[in-house]
Structure formats: C-alpha cells, structure tokens
C-alpha cells in the first residue's frame, strides 16, 4: 500500500513538472510572437512619419528631388507588399534612401536649425532604433525558445506537442546592412 502511494506521488510530481515545462514553452512562444508584432508596429510607424518628413524638407532641399521620389516610391512598395520577402526588400531600400537623405541634410544649415525638422528627425531616428531593437529582441527570444526546444528535458514535451523552432530575422538586403556611417550634427 505504502509502495503504491509513493508510486502515485512520483507520477503526480512528474506530471506537474511536465505541465510546468509545457506552460513555460507556451509562454516563450507567446513572447516570440509579441516580439515579432513589435517589429511590424515600428515599420508601420516609419511609414506614417515619412510624409511629414518630406513635407518638412521640401522647402529647403531643392536639389534632392530624386532621393525624395525614391523614398515615396519605396514607401508605397513596402506598404503594398504582400509577401514577407517583398516587404523586407522594400523596407531595406527605404532605409537606404532615408540614409541618403540624412547625408544630404548636412548641406542645409537652415534645415538643421529648424525646430520642426529636429523634432521629426528625433522621431525618425527613434523609429529606426526601435526597428533594430525590436529585431534584436525578437532574435534573442527566438534563440532562447529554440534552445529550450532542443535541450533536455523540455525537448520531450516540445516533441510531443510539436513545437517548432522559430526562424531568426536576418537582414538580407545589402542596402539595409550598410546603413551609412553618418551622424546628424
């Protein structure tokens, strides 16, 4: 009888242990999803900021028509893109064009003194930062989640309930990778 009770107790403890692993896996997967949605939020915010930015610089930058047209073009491409690949490519081009704009701002001292423009510039810088930090947080989460799935004993539970490894968010576009090494000042 005593032996039987001990046996039951062991089963119950193991059961609880498995449930807690399962729950932590669910929690981690949700964190991965949340991190992913953060990237989307910030990309959308960048799209919203661009018309204001162009409006602010229009009066000053007479000679940069081409860059501004490119920004408009890539923005609408990124917004219309349906597949993730297209979207990533367009966002990459958009980042590159915005980088070029920043370089050119250096040539317009009046623009750099404009308070409206400075406020917009802060918003844009911050949004770019948020995009890269969101991406970084997402990759951190994915790394942690994938480690959990591969390691013993959580890999047993992961296998039983078919948790799949998540993919890292890598930057593929070259233009995106080479954010120009230029600072506003």
């Amino acid at each position, binding site marked *: 009888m005593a032996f039987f009770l001990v046996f039951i107790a062991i089963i119950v403890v193991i059961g609880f242990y498995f449930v807690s692993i399962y729950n932590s896996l669910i929690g981690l997967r949700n964190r991965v999803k949340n991190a992913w949605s*953060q990237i989307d939020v910030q990309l959308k915010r960048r799209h919203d900021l661009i018309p204001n930015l162009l409006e602010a610089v229009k009066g000053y930058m007479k000679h940069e028509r081409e860059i501004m047209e490119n920004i408009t073009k890539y923005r609408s491409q990124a917004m219309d893109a349906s597949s993730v690949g297209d979207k990533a490519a367009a966002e990459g081009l958009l980042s590159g064009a915005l980088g070029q704009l920043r370089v050119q701002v250096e040539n317009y001292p009046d623009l750099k003194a*404009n*308070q409206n423009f400075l406020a917009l510039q802060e918003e844009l*810088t911050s949004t770019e*930062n*948020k995009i890269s930090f969101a991406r970084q947080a997402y990759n951190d989460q994915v*790394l*942690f989640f994938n480690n959990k799935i591969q390691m013993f004993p959580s890999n047993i539970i992961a296998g039983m309930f078919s948790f799949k490894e998540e993919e890292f968010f890598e930057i593929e576009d070259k233009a995106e990778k080479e954010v120009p090494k230029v600072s*506003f000042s």
Partner: protein
Amino acid sequence: MMWELIAANKRKSIFIFIGMGLLLILIGFTFGSFYSPDNGGFIGMFFALVLWGILSMVSYFAGSKILLAVSGAKEVTQDVHPQLYNVVEEMRIAANLPYQPKIYIIADAAPNAFATGIKPENSAIAVTAGMLGTLNRDELQGVVAHEMSHIVNRDVLLMTIAGMMLGAITLMSEVFTRSLWFGGGSRYKSKSSDKGGQAQIIIMIVAIALAILGPIMAQLMYFAISRKREYLADASAVRLTRYPDGLASALEKISGTNLDLKTANKVTAPMYIINPLKKKGMQISNLSSTHPPITERINILRSMTQGVNFANYQTAFNQIKGRQSVIIPQSGLTDNAKIGLRSTELSQTSFETGKQVKREVGDLMMKLNDFLFINCSCGIKLKVPPDFKANSITCPKCGRIHSLFN
C-alpha cells in the same frame, strides 16, 4: 539569458531574506532577554518581526511613491522631453518588456537617474534635468538601459527587502542604545538577583555588541548586494544597447561633475546610477560604498571590444579587477551566443557647448513648470509662460499667429 538571471535574483533574494532575517530575530531575542530574562526574548523577537513587517508592507505598497515624492520627481508626458520618452521606449522594446515604465524628471542640475517599482507593471524611471542636458542620445540610451535592467532583473524588489531589514535592525539598535542611556540600566540593576547576575551580564554584553555591530553588519551586506547589482545592471545594459561606449562615456561625463543631488539621502543613495552623495576630500572605502568605483565601471565597459554578451562582461571584469569574482550568475554565462557590437552610432553626436547645455536644462525646467512650447514653421521656438492670458500669440520673427487652444 535575462529570464534565468531573474530566477537567480529571486533565489538570492530569498537567501538574503533568511540571512538578514536571522540577524533581526537574534537582535530582537537578545534585546528582549535583556529587559526580561524569563520570556522577554520571545516578545523581543515578536516585536522585531512586527516592526519589519510594517516597514515591508509600507515599502511594498507605497515604496516607489514615497521614493519619487522624496526625490522631488515629476511625472512627464512625451512632449516634455520626446527624446527621453523615445529612448525609454526603445529600451523597453529591446528588453521585450510588455509594460512601459512611467517617466519622471527631477528638476536638479546634478546628473543622475534611478529606477523604481517592485513589479515591472508599475515601474518608473526618473532622470534629472542635469542628466538630460549633459548627455547625448547614445549616452542617455546607455543610462536608460542601465535603469531598465534594474527593472527587468527585479533589483528593486531585492533592494527593498534588504533595505527594510536594514531599516528594522538599525531602528531597533537605536532604540535599544537610547533606552540604555535613559534608565534601561537601572531596571536591569533592580531585577538582578544573585544567581541570574552572571547570565544577565553576558546577555547585556551580547546585546550591546549586537546593538553596535548589527547595523554595521547589515549595512555591509546591503552595500555588497548593491554593488553587485550595479555591475550586473551595467552588463545587462550593454547587452540591450549593444554599445558599451554609450554607457561608458555617460559615466565619464556624470562622474566629472561635482554637484550633489539635493534631494538624495543615505537611504535612497543606492537607488541611483551613481552615488548622489560625494564626500568631498574623503577616500570612500570599498566596503562601505553603495556603488562600485566609477572609473572601474568605465574601464570594464571600455575594454569590451570582443562582444557584448554576459560572458564578455565577466571577462572584462576579471581583466580589470585582476581577480575572479562572480558577477554574472553561472546560468547567465551559458548564454554563449556571439553578440557583436553595434557597428554604427545610430544617433547624433553633436558637440554641445556649455551654453547650449544650460539652455537645454533651462528649457526643461520651464516645461516642468507648465510653460507651453510652440515650434513655429519659420524654425524658431516660442516659450509661453503658464500665466499668459491671451488666446493667441504672434511669432516675433515671421508674424505667424499661433492659437493657444489645443
């Protein structure tokens, strides 16, 4: 990774909780037995625990509010300092924290910052106006990342528990030593009988020793935890920003000033990013300081050239200190993913003159005092005092009329 550090921190909280708790009970017991040898020990213990319980309850439920009120911090919205707001949000995203901490500004010219909040849900980050004026964007990001790490690592909870234990121990010792002066001794004399005399003297000696040594021991424990937390927060901050130079140069800048933060005191000092109370002309000894030497923190950060994960910080720490000391719990070091440094400075690194800094701090003080700021499209900034009565204001440069209703 972060989550394992939190778990390690929780375990450590329990450990310190027990250690300081035992000291507290011991002190209560001895003081109690001193007054009444028969059963006073248990009454003393009971009193000690009740005192600590009350202190803990108060600090748990109202601790951050009290701290923020004492330091004179004022909660601000995004428009008061958009950059600070943005940087906090960036770090929240980097830490993947679901809740945005509230943002406070302290109207003081001494550059400093602290974080508070037992739970991340109701956390807050407070920064002085002096800090916002002196630092550029990358440096501010480093500081905010350091504070965000305190929140993420649950350091506030740990420091609150330890702080209240320290408070209870200090308070009891104080009351005890004072009561000795005012007639405690006479009561002891009247009660002492021939056979109890010997034991009474021993208890008295132990009680006096504890009254003197207890607070010192508790304080050293408290400071030791505090210093370790600072290193860990630095390591986590670097991991969040991927940019050790930002925090390093922020620490350089704020250590260069010799302004004391007027609203800080001994109790709140460990909460700040650097020690707000500088004892001028006195060498602060290592054991009794709440913060690690700032030059050491800077050197560690500056020598992180290989990568920015926790193992890299530990390596840099050992290299600078010339000895092995566990800063990052072992579970954190398994995070061996190679994390490179951020290659570019993302933000502006403008060279600011002293005059610009003063103007920025002045603007901030005005905003805190409900001045209205309007950016005119001609590029200048109008500063409208709160007692300005008219409905609209005309720009002195271009003549545009701005309505004041919005």
